[in-house]
């Protein structure tokens, strides 16, 4: 469990990092929290010649609010998210999600930007981002662009992030006050990926759903936005039948792969079950 040899670089600014990326191209990998890449390097499945550590770039850190938008530096750690007063108040879904990621030590190192740009549907932030309608700030040699979470995830480890680009920030529109939320995650044990999970935002008016946002973790090649399920809820009274219909529609878009966690049938059923539970909890948290 020893990595192959590589050169280490610790740029202190984004331009420097971009410069290094350009210079070393294919042979270079970005290092954020390192809890996906380093184990892979120790198993010698990954052997980059150059490791570019983003850990010393101050402008990639921090959580702030900017006119109704929460802006997180891509290198913001899960632990910083968990303890952020701002997020606890204005975006509790993200806090709830972060608390369910891996284990305490990993959450000190793991970053939201790394989690998202890794493009792994088993990671939790992709679904959270889809549910929250977030967008990502990507910077490359040719400048900066902001892309929505929807459409960012192309496939396993395949995202909109181009070679030579770095994700610098995550922008999340502050959910309206009184929005119900829940991240329901089923996992085998601490530190495991989700067997299936559902992220839900719910805006109610009385018993009627004004807006529902639902995204699923680890039941397809990418995190999935359950659009049909969302549409089915909009304008309806939230009850057992509507929740059931939404769950069925959510299960309809699942295409999980069998592994030690279970077969496709089980994982699909769990995606439905997590959707039901997330909707019910979100309902109890939503102001009517």
């Amino acid at each position, binding site marked *: *469990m*020893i*990595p192959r*040899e590589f050169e280490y670089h*610790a740029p202190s600014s984004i331009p420097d990092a971009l410069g290094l990326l350009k210079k070393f191209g294919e042979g270079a990998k970005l290092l954020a929290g390192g809890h996906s890449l380093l184990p892979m390097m120790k198993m010698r499945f990954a052997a980059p010649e150059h490791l570019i550590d983003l850990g010393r770039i101050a402008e990639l850190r921090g959580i702030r609010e900017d006119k109704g938008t929460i802006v997180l530096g891509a290198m913001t750690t899960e632990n910083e998210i968990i303890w952020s007063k701002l997020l606890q108040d204005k975006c509790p879904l993200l806090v709830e999600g972060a608390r369910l990621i891996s284990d305490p*030590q990993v959450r*000190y*190192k793991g970053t939201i930007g790394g989690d998202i740009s890794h493009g792994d549907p088993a990671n939790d932030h992709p679904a959270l981002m889809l549910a929250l309608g977030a967008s990502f700030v990507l910077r490359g040699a040719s400048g900066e662009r902001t892309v929505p979470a929807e459409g960012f995830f192309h496939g396993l480890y395949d995202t909109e992030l181009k070679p030579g680009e770095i994700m610098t920030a995550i922008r999340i529109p502050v959910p309206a006050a009184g929005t119900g939320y829940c991240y329901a995650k089923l996992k085998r044990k601490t*530190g495991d990926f989700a067997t299936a999970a559902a992220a839900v935002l719910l805006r109610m008016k009385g018993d009627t759903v004004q807006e529902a946002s639902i995204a699923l973790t680890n039941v397809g090649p990418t995190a999935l936005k359950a659009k049909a399920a969302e549409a089915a809820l909009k304008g309806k009274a939230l009850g057992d039948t509507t929740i059931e219909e939404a769950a069925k529609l959510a299960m309809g878009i699942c295409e999980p792969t069998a592994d030690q966690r279970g077969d496709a049938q089980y994982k699909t059923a769990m995606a439905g079950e997590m959707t039901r539970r997330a909707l019910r909890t979100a309902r109890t948290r939503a102001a009517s």
Partner: protein
Amino acid sequence: MAKKQAVAFNLNGKQVDVLVEPRELLIHTLREKLAHTGPHIGCETSHCGACTVDLDGMSVKSCTVLTVQCEGAKVLTIEGMEQGGALHALQEGFHQEHGLQCGYCTPGMITRAYRLLQENPDPTEEEIRYWMAGNLCRCTGYQNIVKAVQYAAKKLAAKAA
């Protein structure tokens, strides 16, 4: 062999300088170059927490941190817990509450609990079980480890008061 790099950091209050390959893992530098064998290696895939050390105020698994990332950092290991010949309340608690058996996970447990109590000085049993879940123990079943952390929390609170 890739060019070695000089890395300087603060280990348990003392400045140390090491010359390492970029690929060298912090756990190996601590154990083999700096003779700090308290932190142990249990899984190498960052699941067991036996290698836990405190890095700039974070509990981290030193099997998944590169030494070159520690330039200028403050590193605290089990060896740095005892102050002026006096055991830390956690070390005392693990002994008093029989929170260890084979002792292999103990340094990581204590180091992790140290940071936990900095962030939450009065944790409930449930909170302790949640915030200590990055450290595996095969001997104790955790029940006495929970007691040990509570023992230390009380003791530290009394001291502070």
